[in-house]
């Protein structure tokens, strides 16, 4: 094809029909069978398909683990990963902020002498430790659990596991907010309570009832293990908050 001087030549895409990826990028999500690229953005929309009211309902049921289960909602029973992404992120941010915000307010309102107030500013070391701990727990443990369940012929949907692990961390957000109070006893008690609530939530909701029998002995064993790991996670968060440098 003849071109004028300086005219930019567009790459030749051949005969592939790319119109659905260019022109329809903001259209409602495609069905997985309609696209060959599983990492296409509109495919991921399927995993974030919930309303604000659904999200708040699931969080409320995660904080109050008695009564209906997290995904027991006739309007929307599909597992989502919005909670799995943003609830742990919130915990990391709130814990990192509160570990330095307390000293900020202390200096702001008490006008301490410059030589006495050695505020560390942004504590990135603690931020990274929280990040590794929280994201590591919420990624590695569900993946290992899913793999172990597959090996023992108790297959559970990975999306369901990720969803429940995400929402079970909701109580830690409140414990993290309380951690700004400058009394150790207060936030130790709040972390212990959050850990108990989170573990009960995980124990009740972790497995999908659609897949196999809920009363199988091996499933019960996995429930116990997952719950104990959750308790250890809560203790780990508290230790890092108190003693992480």
């Amino acid at each position, binding site marked *: 094809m003849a071109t*004028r001087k*300086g*005219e*930019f030549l567009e790459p030749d895409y051949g005969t592939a029909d790319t119109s659905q990826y260019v022109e329809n990028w*903001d259209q409602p999500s495609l069905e997985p069978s309609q696209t060959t690229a599983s990492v296409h953005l509109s495919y991921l929309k399927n995993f*974030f398909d*919930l*309303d*604000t*009211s659904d*999200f708040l309902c699931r969080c409320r049921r995660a904080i109050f683990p008695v009564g209906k289960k997290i995904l027991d909602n006739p309007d929307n029973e599909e597992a989502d990963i*919005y909670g799995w992404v*943003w609830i742990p*992120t*919130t915990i990391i*941010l709130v814990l*990192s*902020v509160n570990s*330095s*915000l307390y*000293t*900020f307010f202390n*200096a*702001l309102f008490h006008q301490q002498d*410059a030589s006495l*107030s050695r*505020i*560390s*500013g*942004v504590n*990135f070391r603690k931020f990274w430790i929280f990040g590794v701990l929280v994201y590591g727990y919420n990624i590695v443990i569900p993946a290992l659990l899913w793999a172990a369940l597959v090996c023992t012929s108790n297959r559970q949907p990975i999306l369901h596991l990720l969803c429940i692990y995400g929402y079970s961390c909701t109580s830690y957000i409140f414990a993290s907010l309380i951690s700004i109070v400058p009394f150790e006893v207060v936030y130790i008690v709040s972390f212990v309570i959050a850990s108990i609530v989170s573990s009960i939530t995980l124990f009740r909701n972790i497995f999908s009832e659609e897949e196999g029998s809920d009363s199988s002995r091996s499933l019960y064993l996995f429930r116990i293990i997952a719950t104990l790991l959750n308790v250890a996670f809560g203790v780990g968060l508290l230790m890092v908050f108190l003693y992480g440098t």
Partner: protein
Amino acid sequence: MDAAAFQESTLDEPVWNTIKRDLGLIGRRLKLVILPKVTAMEMQAELRDWDLWGPLFICMTLATVLSVEASEDASLIFSCLVVQFRSLWAYVFWDIVFGAAVVVRFVTVVLLLFWSIMAVTAFFADVKLPEGRKLLAVYPVFLFYSGIAWMVLVGFQEHK
């Protein structure tokens, strides 16, 4: 033919004209962020015609201002913020940059944080979110800007 003619004319124009045009673009977008009172069509047109000059300058300024005050974590702060320039929404950083330099930091930063979020919410008008999902879409933005505001707020205490 029109596109080729337009391209040819901007290639041959003086450098100062190009810079002036880009500076005008940045100024217009900053004005849009400060006072997002435009029609949905105008907002849509601006979002379609995105550029990265403004986010680059704003994020570099923020990173430089914070790094001047920080010591050990200067490189980390700088690199984290420079990465964020790849976003049209980084235009809303302007107010947090401004908050980094004034005395009453806490109240100012909090107010400007909420102003940023309101500006981003105006941008969402173009995305046509389904009913009942606006809060879910705005929340990650709020989280992100809160992190930046926290860095601006707390990062300056080290020299006291």
